[in-house]
């Protein structure tokens, strides 16, 4: 008897995103991509590289440079039985679609009492640390995760990116899929060639620990893991919870971890004020107050509108392993 072994390859996040879309387009004719430069160019990051030749112009649509219609047309097509994947070239360019997504897509199911669905995905590279300056570095999650009716996903690894993007494409509700552009080529990992999905709304404990819980997502998962390794040498055991999905938010996994450690540090690159960390911290305080041995702490982007271009200025903005390690030391000593 010959046992078939599952093929596993090492891929980066960009390849995982590419493969997820390609496999879903092969699986389901209703899936198509539209966006700026997604055709012959294959996307500015090459997420749709080769798609035009394989799937043709009808399913790989280069759109006019007009984001609102990318989302609005996708929304209309989704309401009529298609499963569009809209690519917004950079998160910083997403604001023209805010009305079509927050005002429209998120409310269609509620506003028609379930008669219409919006099975669409908006994919966009976000985040900084890539010398992107004020208009190619921004974190945008807080603006969307506030909205009932939307789902917001922000994977950190190639394995998670592929499994979650497939779930997003199969989901019957609008999903904002945030790919941290710094992870695209930097972060590699094992990705099965087989078809698999990961549940939207389920966090993943990326590292077990007993002293401090670090709650994070996206690029920061990797920085937190690095800081946790450093702290281990100092005798502090950190548990790293990668929430993976910002809405729905898996508070059960977070609270379970905090119950064990008694201390919680929330880390994100996005601005601290009004950011996702505020919601996580507030819910830990409301529902996990009894577990706490120290203040729920946030380490997040500073009060500047976006990320500066010049390297030293950009470093001032970015959360890095050293800053995280410092925050852990302070919290663990409380």
């Amino acid at each position, binding site marked *: 008897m010959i046992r078939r072994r599952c093929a596993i390859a090492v891929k980066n996040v960009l390849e995982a995103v590419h493969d997820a879309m390609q496999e879903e387009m092969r699986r389901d004719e209703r899936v198509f991509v539209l966006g700026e430069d997604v055709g012959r160019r294959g996307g500015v990051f090459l997420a749709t590289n080769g798609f035009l030749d394989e799937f043709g112009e009808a399913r790989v649509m280069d759109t006019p440079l007009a984001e609102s219609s990318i989302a609005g047309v*996708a929304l*209309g097509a989704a309401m*009529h039985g298609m499963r569009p994947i809209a690519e917004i070239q950079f998160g910083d360019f997403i604001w023209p679609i805010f009305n079509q997504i927050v*005002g429209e897509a998120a409310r269609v199911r509620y506003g028609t009492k379930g*008669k*219409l669905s919006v099975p669409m995905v908006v994919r966009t590279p976000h985040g900084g640390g890539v010398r992107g300056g004020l208009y190619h570095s921004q974190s945008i999650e807080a603006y969307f995760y506030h909205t009932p009716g939307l789902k917001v996903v922000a994977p950190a690894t190639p394995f998670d990116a592929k499994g979650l993007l497939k779930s997003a494409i199969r989901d019957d509700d609008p999903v904002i899929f945030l790919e941290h552009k710094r992870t695209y080529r930097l972060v590699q990992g094992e990705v099965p060639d087989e078809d698999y999905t990961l549940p939207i709304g389920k966090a993943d404990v990326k590292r077990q620990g007993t002293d401090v819980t670090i709650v994070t997502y996206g690029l920061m998962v990797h920085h937190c893991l690095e800081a946790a390794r450093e702290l281990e040498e100092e005798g502090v055991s950190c548990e790293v919870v990668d929430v993976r999905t910002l809405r729905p938010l898996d508070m059960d996994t977070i609270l379970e971890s905090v119950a064990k450690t008694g201390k919680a540090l929330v880390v994100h690159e996005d601005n601290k004020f009004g950011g996702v960390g505020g919601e996580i911290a507030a819910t830990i305080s409301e529902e996990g107050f009894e577990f706490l041995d120290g203040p729920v702490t946030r380490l997040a982007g500073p009060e500047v509108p976006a990320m500066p271009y010049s390297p030293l200025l950009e470093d001032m903005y970015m959360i890095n392993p050293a800053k995280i390690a410092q925050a852990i030391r302070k919290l663990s000593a409380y």
Partner: protein
Amino acid sequence: MATANRSKRQDPSSPLDSETLLEMYRQMVLSRTLDERIWMLNRQGKAAIVASSQGHEAGQIGSVYALQRGKDQFYIYYRDLAVMLTLGMTPEEILLGFMAKAGEPLSGARQFPTHGAYLELGIVNQSNVIATHLPQAVGAALAAKMKGEDYIVIVYFGDGATSAGDTHEALNFASLHKLPVIFFCENNKYATSVPQHKQMAVESIASRAEGYAMPGISIDGCDVVAVYEAVSEAAKRARSGMGPTLIEAMVERFLPHTSDDDDSIYRPKGEIEEARKRDPLKALNLSLTSLGILDAETDKQYLDEARSIVNEATDLAEAAPFPDTSDFMEHVYYS
């Protein structure tokens, strides 16, 4: 019901036979009667908000008759009462919406009156936000093309909507891909209180079509036959893969923007009286009378019938309860 005169085609130049013209007239009488009733209910405190279709009816009814009911998709906006009725919504269903009652079919009374979706009739009216539905209608047309289905889409909007960026993006996208969609602008020359000349430098909204390499036509939106002909032509183009058409139907707004508006503040004296001379209901009455299709007896019969339908619908809607609150958290997500 009996009609006074069932003879075919009294007017050889008209594309519509006399029976159809009478049906359209009857529909218009019903729409006007219902619209007036909704205002009365508003003034009685029973309907929170009204945006009237009075003066727009010929554009709305003529366009629906030119399309395939039950198949084509109608992306309407808030002033399209006569479209909804002509597509088959009942006055009772409409009034349940205005009075926010249980059984309201579009949104379960979650939304403003006339908003939501009625899929069996091909009606989609998700948003209150001007012009957001134009790209969505284009997406609906794109889906038809991708799925190889032969429905076409008509999207209705006011003159104010043509100032919005979404309108430009929608027209450009639709023309680029030759999508089966008709852009139907009901130009009543006012965006709430702002007259057309303060909204745009062009005199003709139809002239903008040139910028998208699509046909644009301005028509008398108070003439139901002219509307029928223009939309039929646009539908023919859409169905044969020739792409979209922009139709500007010149209509009149007899009443304030909504029941919360006071148009005496901004409309010049005498303007509405002048507009009422173009009343589409009177125009169709005169035309059908002069053609010998309509007589006074039938006219009265239609009005009596409309009043009785609207009275009954009012009673039913008033008697209906408000929606059950137990499901107010439902349908945020699929699961």
